[in-house]
């Protein structure tokens, strides 16, 4: 038995393909409560790979179950066993913090399709780490900027009591020039917001900003709409994304949210993306799908001019960001995080489907607050 296995192992080493394949490892969330986001990133990414027509790119996809220790284990597997050149796919900041620093130190490239924790944008930045989505604070900063232009002067703000929640409120306050009627940290995973809504009602605020990703946001919006409070609500795109808007329903109508992407951004790449995504998967693409799609296209553009085996050339090719993004203009700042325009969108209803429409620009060519700390 052992002899047989050894023979098989030897054969597999000899049978290595003659063409230099590029191996990409995708660690993302495909099971459990947060699976919708991972599935969107994966589908967007694979759509771009399929459209490129290249068959020398091997994508290995694994499910991290949204558990940091599983993600670390998978990244070890991808690097040690699959020997991937590029890693991507992680959705959650805490998983990214567990995986990315160790991975990039082992000379693997990491392209982030979603999470952008602040340490990786500032002091902990790395030449092999590229963020194709946003720095975590970006959309919240844009929400603060939008609140100024909308004339709000007294906001009530809330987020879950964990680091991304603190970042969100910090980001909003960084740009918002008015006063705060209240600032609340809720429990992570909280499903009932009656107590917070009562405080909002009593606070005398003229607007509400919230960051409650996933199911938390659905619950909050439903309960807020039913409470009869009619203060305007602002938030980042995460609670108004295509995947969950249908579950919120009419409660989200008219809410303004900030996003670097929407399906009505007018450029040929985006139009083709929205159409082909719908044709392929039978649903409207989400923010996350667009980020997966852009990540794959960035990778493809770099592969056109360099191979990951030549790390320096490949890094330069990635940094050039010479690809057609679904969001229009796209460039990397000095810390390898996007410099991009962030829009204000409004939730509307098209027939039976709830979706978003761009109503203005919140921040033009916006970078992030941590770039100066990055010594690369």
């Amino acid at each position, binding site marked *: 038995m052992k002899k047989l296995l050894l023979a098989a192992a030897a054969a597999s080493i000899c049978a290595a393909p003659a063409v230099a394949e590029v191996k990409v490892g995708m660690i993302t969330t495909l099971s459990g409560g947060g699976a919708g986001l991972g599935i969107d990133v994966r589908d967007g990414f694979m759509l771009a790979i399929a459209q490129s027509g290249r068959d020398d790119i091997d994508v290995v996809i694994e499910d991290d179950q949204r558990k940091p220790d599983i993600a670390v284990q998978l990244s070890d597997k991808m690097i040690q066993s699959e020997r991937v050149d590029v890693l991507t796919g992680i959705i959650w900041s805490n998983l990214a913090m567990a995986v990315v*620093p160790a991975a990039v130190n082992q000379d693997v490239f990491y392209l982030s399709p979603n999470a952008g*924790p602040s340490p990786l944008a500032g002091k902990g930045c790395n030449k092999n780490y590229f963020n194709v989505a946003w720095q975590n604070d970006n959309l919240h900063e844009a929400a603060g900027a939008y609140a100024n232009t909308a004339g709000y002067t007294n906001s009530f703000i809330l987020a879950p009591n964990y680091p991304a929640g603190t970042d969100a409120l910090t980001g909003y306050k960084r740009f918002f020039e008015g006063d705060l009627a209240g600032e609340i940290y809720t429990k992570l995973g909280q499903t009932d917001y009656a107590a917070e809504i009562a405080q909002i009602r009593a606070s005398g605020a003229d607007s509400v900003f919230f960051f409650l990703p996933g199911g938390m946001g659905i619950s909050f919006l439903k309960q807020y709409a039913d409470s009869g409070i009619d203060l305007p609500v602002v938030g980042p795109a995460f609670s108004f994304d295509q995947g969950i808007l249908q579950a919120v329903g009419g409660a989200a109508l008219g809410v303004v949210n900030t996003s670097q992407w929407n399906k009505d951004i007018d450029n040929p790449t985006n139009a083709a993306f929205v159409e082909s995504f719908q044709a392929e998967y039978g649903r409207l693409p989400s923010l996350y799908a667009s980020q997966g799609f852009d990540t794959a296209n960035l990778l493809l553009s770099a592969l056109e001019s360099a191979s990951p085996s030549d790390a320096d050339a490949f890094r330069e090719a990635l940094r050039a960001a010479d690809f057609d993004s679904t969001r229009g203009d796209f460039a990397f700042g000095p810390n390898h995080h996007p410099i991009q325009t962030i829009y204000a969108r409004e939730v509307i209803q098209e027939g039976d489907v709830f979706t978003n429409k761009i109503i203005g620009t919140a921040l033009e060519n916006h970078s992030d607050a941590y770039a100066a700390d990055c010594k690369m």
Partner: protein
Amino acid sequence: MRIAEHWINGAVLIGIAALPLWALFIDEPFTITLVTRAVILALAAVGLNIVLGFGGLVSFGHAVFFGLGGYAMGILAYHAQTYTVLDLGFFTTEGTKSMPIIWLVAMGISAIAAFFIGLLCLRTSGVYFIMITLAFGQMFYYFAISWAQYGGEDGLSIYVRNGFPGLNTLVPIQFFGICFALLCLVLILKARLQRAPFGLALNALRQSEARVATMGLNPMRIKLLAFVLSGAITGLAGALFADLNRFVSPAMFSWQFSGELIVLIIIGGVGRLMGPVIGACVFVALEHFLGGLTDFWHVYLGLILLGIVLFGRGGLLGLLTGKEGAHV
């Protein structure tokens, strides 16, 4: 099929030692990482098995000690890696990257926590004990999530694995060696303990507390000692687990993890020396191979676990040796 238990135990240990060597030979370092994971989970479950299998106390909160061990490593290494001072008021330190010191701290803190938690929880029994240990787990979990200084929900990343004198711990096989040696050490200790007066008294306690009390022994004291010992071992496993992943997070405190530890023991066989070890190996293998098959692998995992409960009383060891394990 009836096989003597000590033969199985020996075969399992040899198998665990041989697999990484084979993986080293064919250059598959990830297999070594996977076996190391199983060994560490086994160590944690061996710790739990002291109270659960031998003492009959179903602790649904052992993730507390696992997490404390992990955070002991995380905090010490974090201060060492950032060159910042950890100020405890009465004592300041710049942290450390040395494994033996971290292990001692991890075991010490877990033991202290186990002492106080045990003091409160051991007043109850049965389902109430299950639930109050669960409550302590949840308290630590929510505390860790809101503990912003050490990363809150994001957890702490340690960039380089901690060091052990004379070894390069970053080489997978050497780190495996450390973990395996610790597991063997703990197993030997536990085997001796089982035959010592303390072990016999603990076993008797599970069957009849009143009889032990009439023998003139103090049941509370015996249970508390077992709980502290159990917590310290699980804490050690936590420190190793954090080093394996070079990362700690509140997930180590989650009730799901406490549940997983119990699952490991039941798969292998309750109250048996090697039950948790076999359970951990099987669980890690299932997780690895089923996860590769389908997105919906939890369904199959659930069905397999159900099968084990319904048809395999006494766990895998029970099946192989034809003897049911201890009743809890």
